[in-house]
């Protein structure tokens, strides 16, 4: 049987051109996607206590940070309230001291320092929510790659409500 199109030479030429395009930045898998809305994750709203108080920090040693942008354009969203909770060395996810909110800066970034997150229900993870009127509600449940991590970056891309 003959495969007329997929010869080795054609494959190598194609692969070479693709590599060149990515390397020179003519095409990039990153820029190819515009800012798509962040989807709510399974179990994201578990143990949610609405309206967690605005806090400067919830503890020491663990840093949650990220950027909040508008879907499509990627324009930073200022003063968006991000609610954060997680099981830490202070206690479980229902422990009030593990719940807090922060507002995003002018550049759309937010940051919260809290106690070290510990594995809860089998996985080390945090919960984050955007649940105010201006944009559609999003509940996230990012899992840390390692339980010994001391930081977690979580970005939001929101759509208008």
């Amino acid at each position: 049987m003959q495969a007329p199109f997929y010869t080795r030479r054609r494959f190598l030429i194609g692969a070479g051109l693709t590599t060149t395009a990515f390397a020179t930045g003519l095409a990039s898998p990153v820029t190819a996607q515009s800012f798509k809305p962040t989807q709510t994750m399974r179990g994201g709203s578990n143990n949610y206590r609405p309206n967690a108080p605005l806090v400067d920090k919830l503890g020491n040693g663990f840093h949650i940070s990220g950027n909040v942008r508008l879907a499509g354009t990627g324009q930073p969203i200022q003063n968006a309230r991000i609610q954060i909770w997680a099981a830490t060395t202070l206690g479980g996810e229902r422990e009030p001291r593990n719940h807090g909110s922060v507002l995003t800066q002018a550049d759309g970034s937010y940051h919260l320092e809290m106690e070290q997150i510990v594995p809860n229900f089998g996985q080390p993870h945090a919960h984050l929510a955007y649940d105010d009127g201006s944009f559609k509600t999003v509940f996230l449940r990012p899992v840390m790659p390692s339980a010994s991590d001391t930081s977690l970056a979580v970005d939001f891309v929101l759509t208008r409500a």
Partner: protein
Amino acid sequence: MADQPLHSRFKNALIWGALALALVTPLLVATQSPYLASRQPIYIAAGFAGILALLLFLLQPLLAGSLLPGLRPRASRMWHRATGSLILVSVVAHIGGLYLTSPPDTLDALLLVSPTPFSVYGVVALWGLIITALLVTLRQKLPLRFLHWSILHNTLAVVVVLSTVVHALLIEGTMGIASKWLTCGAVLTITAWVLFDIRIRRPRRTR
């Protein structure tokens, strides 16, 4: 067993000692977990109930095969039934304790909508256990020959043990990593050996 030679008694003591060590060590290791400090008592109990259920799967096949020295087949079978009940009680305590700790997480797991990859294996093991319990309770009433019943029982045992092991290995919990992997390896080896022994080796010998 006064009529047994000394080396045989020593061997028996060694087997029972090794079994006791295999059952107790993972529990002791888990009591040293740094995660315990920030957990509520009910969550800790739920975790230990899960560890106990896993550990009992070391014992259960040995009792089924009547392989423990000093235990006559009749007593072994009685202990097999008792251990089976204890496994069921441990699993109920495990899930009940997790429910009291976090109802939404536990319901998600039971309804198979949890984001955690290991919970589906836990639920499979749970259903396997429930069906096993029903088959055991209704054995006399079911229109099943004993051979067919026991093959069904063995098949369910394989499903329950495999899913329990995967469930345990994927969880980041209070068990020590080494003791968990060793326990799971031992559970799989013993289960496989006993199944081979009672289903293939023994029937072949008596034929």
